């Protein structure tokens, strides 16, 4: 290990509080774009998209006058088997897909992920989605958009646009998985 990699500059771009504020804004953007909560389904992409989708669903449910059950809005969509790099990366264990009781046919599905980068995960998610049903509209919400797209895909709701170099790494830590809430950018040597 050389000296540089031991002293990676890890810079916090979003603190836990920042993440909360950003999610609140994105939640209201989603409601605004949908003109309410009717037919709305949030599908998180494992692993960190799912807790984000849950947090968004809680905010969206709390904003409605009749106190919607957040669980009826949120689900998880596994994309492992739809990836285009299965031959090249290590074997990945698929995660369960759980859809809300109402299914996704005719619904407005908002895909939720932590970082939008090449766009390949979202392509895989769109393929996976079509095997589960036919949503009326599919939108995309991400916490971080770090650029460097390799496919013609863009997010409808972005928590934070983060210009990065390809050599940098963006790490999202969420309490549900990592025990803390922050977004860190690492300049790897």
């Amino acid at each position: 290990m050389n000296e540089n990699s031991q002293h990676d500059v890890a810079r916090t771009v979003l603190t836990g509080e920042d993440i909360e504020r950003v999610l609140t804004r994105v939640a209201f953007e989603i409601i605004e774009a949908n003109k309410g909560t009717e037919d709305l389904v949030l599908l998180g992409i494992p692993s960190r998209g799912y807790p984000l989708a849950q947090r968004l669903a809680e905010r969206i449910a709390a904003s409605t006058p009749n106190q919607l059950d957040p669980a009826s809005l949120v689900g998880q969509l596994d994309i492992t088997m739809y990836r285009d790099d299965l031959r090249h990366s290590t074997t990945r264990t698929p995660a369960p897909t759980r859809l809300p009781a109402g299914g996704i046919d005719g619904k407005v599905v908002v895909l939720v992920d932590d970082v939008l980068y090449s766009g390949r995960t979202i392509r895989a998610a769109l393929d996976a989605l079509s095997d589960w049903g036919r949503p009326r509209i599919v939108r995309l919400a991400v916490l971080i958009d770090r650029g460097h797209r390799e496919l013609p895909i863009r997010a409808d709701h972005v928590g934070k646009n983060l210009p990065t170099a390809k050599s940098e790494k963006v790490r999202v830590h969420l309490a549900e998985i990592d025990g803390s809430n922050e977004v860190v950018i690492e300049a790897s040597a």
Partner: protein
Amino acid sequence: MKHLLSTADLSREEAIAILDIAEEMRETGTRQVKKLPALRGRTVVNLFFEDSTRTRISFEAAAKRLSADVINFSAKGSSVSKGESLKDTAQTLLAIGADAVVIRHPDSGAPARLAATDWIGLPIVNAGDGTHEHPTQALLDAFTLRRQLALREGVSPVGRGLDGLKVAIVGDILHSRVARSNLWLLNTLGASVTMVAPPTLLPVGAGAWPCRISYSLDAVIESGVDAVMMLRVQGERMRAAFFPNPREYSRYWGLDDTRLKALEAKGHDTLILHPGPMNRGLEISSAAADSPASMVLEQVTNGVAVRMASLYMLLSGDLI
């Protein structure tokens, strides 16, 4: 994992990883679109030198659900009957463009031979070789046990082993590759195994296996087991008299109606497994085969999921 030849090669982590992936694969069998694109553009060859219905169909369904192309080869009606060697047959398949080979062979060790030589550099799945091993059958049996127990306890089966489970494997142990594969895998997963058979149907050296051996099915049922795995009496491999007649076998080592009642009387829902095809009335009675405790059809369903997981493990990831 490069090949799947024997359950003795699997570590506990690997075995649980396959069962966990199979758990997700089984879910896709319940949805509207049952196909996954994971192996699109790959070709899986089913190379069957021995008769089989459920294993071949199960592997075929598994490969197709992962969007792989399947070529079925059976020795009957092929150039093998003209004297073609295993090496030539295998290399022909490579030339056709196969990406993985699923092989069943009457000779123990044929899949290992394919894997060990440089004839073809493809992942090999052993689908039963002679009286040696049948790893995917053992995996689907373990999967079925794990899933049923988790359902009963109302927990998720993912990540769990079979620790503390008591399993009796009953019948023609001598000729059974299923028994051998199950023995290694069940031990790896923490279950304790009792082999029950007439002395003539136990192989020489069974005493050194990590299991208990009993000659009395009644005594084993009386002692209480969580699952009984009935084995088929393999008439086609028997070239000597191993028991006086079928009625006597059935009377002493078959799961007949009396023993079914004894199992039910023990009152803790012993699961009944059979790898199929069943000889109804010989090793298992119709009442036992069709009882609610019978997992026979569940095993077939789970077989597809386990084989999907195996093919996925072998054909994804770095192949170098």
